């Protein structure tokens, strides 16, 4: 399984905080997004992380990985 998490305004937009998708084959972060968003385009400014590290859309994701999507950070 691959765990997919959403934060902040993106969590509200998705209507949920997390998805779990099967991990029968490796795929890119962009493909994970296409799957959970049912083909909706990558939102402007959306950031992604794999296993708690920032990742670009091309990064490969494997079974057991945790992927996260979120808007620009605004801490501090």
């Amino acid at each position: 399984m691959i765990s997919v998490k959403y934060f902040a305004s993106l969590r509200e937009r998705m209507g949920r905080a997390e998805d779990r998708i099967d991990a029968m084959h490796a795929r890119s972060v962009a493909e994970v997004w296409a799957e959970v968003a049912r083909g909706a385009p990558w939102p402007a400014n959306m950031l992604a992380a794999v296993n708690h590290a920032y990742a670009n859309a091309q990064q490969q994701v494997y079974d057991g990985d945790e992927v996260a999507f979120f808007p620009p950070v605004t801490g501090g």
Partner: protein
Amino acid sequence: MTILVCNTPFDPWQELARHQQALEQCGRYGATACFVGTLRDFNEGETVAAMTLEHYPGMTEKYLSAICAEAAQRWPIIDALIVHRAGEVTPNDTLVLTAVWAAHRAEAFAACRYLIEELKTRAPFWKHETLKAGARWVEHNTPG
């Protein structure tokens, strides 16, 4: 190097006093630079009644630690401290504290500034403001 994500209010000056007391290199640091961020009661023209700080547990701690480690690689510092608030906050609550202990002031200032700038750019926190009428996500930080 100490990092802490705090779900309840904290007093930055007490945290600094406590941390400095525990610093074992007594007599070695000559310079401490610190920054404290506090919730104001207005932002971008709107009165802010309260705010929620959401974050990504796990990734947050990883990035706060990495930022401290990077500062220690770039400058000859003795110690660094980051405390960041999470959860429900109200005006005058402390949001963040960054502090650096070093032999001299140039590296203390530079490293302290690095901690807060990198934290604002990379640590996965998001601000959700409760306004007088309605609520909104903060879209971007004030430039440093």
